[in-house]
């Protein structure tokens, strides 16, 4: 039951991040559509991989009351299907989904608060995925709360910095904002007593 709940949470969060990154549909640069399709594929395969791994654990437990099937020889389609399934399982779909979703967000017109919300939902997705995979409880993240809070604070600062009107119209102001944000993150990382 708990496993089903965490699976559902991962599914909802995947749908939320893909939908959020795809919005607004108007004004997106060329390439947004293929990136969206890639993100959706990554989400679906990632979810299938997660569901397959939890179902495999249950199936093993069910089979344990019987003798091993002892099927020595597989037919060619069965062997191909098994190879395809193992190849799909080997791909790190969540990582690809993260890259695709951030890329999709980058292809949309700048909206700092929109990107910040996407970051928060991505963080929640990673936490839900870890819970679903390891069967741990949400309380496991209690020790990480100060770091998460600091990270969210930094994200808020960077969003605010991005939202401020640039002092000049040249490309240097953008670089400056990015460098400032990275410096702030590094400073926070060094200063935090972990």
């Amino acid at each position, binding site marked *: 039951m708990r496993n089903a709940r965490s699976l559902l949470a991962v599914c909802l969060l995947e749908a939320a991040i893909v939908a959020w990154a795809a919005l607004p549909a108007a004004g997106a640069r060329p390439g947004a559509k293929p990136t969206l399709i890639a993100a959706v594929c990554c989400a679906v395969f990632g979810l299938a991989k997660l569901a397959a791994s939890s179902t495999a654990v249950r199936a093993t437990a069910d089979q344990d009351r019987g003798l091993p099937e002892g099927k020595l020889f597989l037919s060619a389609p069965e062997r191909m299907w098994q190879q395809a399934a193992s190849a799909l399982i080997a791909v790190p779909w969540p990582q690809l989904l993260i890259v695709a979703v951030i890329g999709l967000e980058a292809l949309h017109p700048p909206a700092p608060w929109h990107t910040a919300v996407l970051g928060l939902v991505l963080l929640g997705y990673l936490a839900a995925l870890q819970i679903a995979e390891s069967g741990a409880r949400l309380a496991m993240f209690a020790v990480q709360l100060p770091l998460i809070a600091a990270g969210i604070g930094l994200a808020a600062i960077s969003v605010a910095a991005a939202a401020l009107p640039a002092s000049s119209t040249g490309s240097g102001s953008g670089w400056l*904002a990015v460098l400032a944000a990275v410096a702030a993150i590094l400073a926070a990382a060094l200063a935090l007593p972990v």
Partner: protein
Amino acid sequence: MNTVAEKTVGLTAGPRRELPITWQLSAHARRLATLAIAGLLFAVITRRAEFAGLAAPALLLLIGYRADRPSAIGAELATGAELMTEGEQGAVLLRLTGLDAAQARVRLRPAPWITGGDAELGADGWYRLPFVPHRWGIRPVGTIDVTMWDRWRLTECWLTVGVPSVTCHPRLAVLDSLVVLSKLPARLGEHTSRHPGEGIEFDGVRDFVPGDRQRRINWPATTRRGTLQLNVFTAERAQNVVVLIDVSTDVGEPGRSSADLAVRAAAGTAMRYLAARDRVAVISFGRKLQWIASATGRRQADRIMNLIMTAGTAAGQPLGGLSALPHSALPPGALVIVFSPLLSLRLVEALRELRERGFAVIVVDVLVAQPSGGAGRNRAITQLARRIWRMEQEAIRFSLRELGIPVVAWDGQAPLDEPLAPYTRRPWLTTEMVNR
């Protein structure tokens, strides 16, 4: 999902052992790193500071990565019980020490015919992993998978601990009432015999003769008849019982096969007769002939269980007639209870031979499986073959009955009292059957 090679360690119950472990970057850490790198990369490419902010929480979470994790942990294994019965719950105990701040998840990966439960961590630091064996035999319990994480879940390692096998005794078939022969050997026991003796079962009265015990005088009868009358009691005797298990053929669904049923019924019968202080011998009719000489008591029960556990597999005499067996394994005048699917013609011949030698033999048929009906084009032929097979089986049973060997069927579910009821109500008159 885990691409890291797992390490299998075979532990035996005993003192703490040091097990080396290798930590790997966890999938969670890899995902956090992807988020951080992608965020920073897109921030630089697009020159949008908000992407750097998106990477900030992931980057900060990754600073919890430390290299000073334990390189070895201590593991102690204890098996709750090495002797079990089918369906009985047992537990394996595991204690992990030297984890420091790392967290561990322990899970039993059960072997076939074992059902594992969820691990529980006790207050004493021991993980208790319950399991239930569902089929008799010397069974491997399985392996214990241990997954460990650091407190930030950025690194993880795996360990597989092998659990020793358990000896699982068959579930004893229920048998309350016993088949008792009318003619019992002169050995003190608990069955009421037809001869007068020192038992407690009242048999009648007779005239007092000098030397009789005065406390046995029946005063009401003495008053009525005018002469001293004495109470007479029956003797209490033990009988010799031979339990014959036929495991030469094993047909049917595993767990309910003919060998499973034969073994459960034989174990239940032998234990019940031993509880009644009878002398019990066991003969295993498998690929080899094995036997245990008749005896009584707790040690005999252990010996019988050991034989049953290895029935059909251990070394023994080449399979032949039962005439070669010594008197201790087949005492004259013994009651022979056979548990067999009656598929071995050698056994049928051996039963005929026993009957001809005057043994009281009763066969409990444990064949519950039937050949499948077949499908497709060969269905008609298969059904014909099935009918012929059934007729052959009926012929075997009929021929045994004609010899005076009763054959009763047991389905493995009901108590053995039900099929044996016609023979447990009164002492079994073996002489009549011999003369039939």
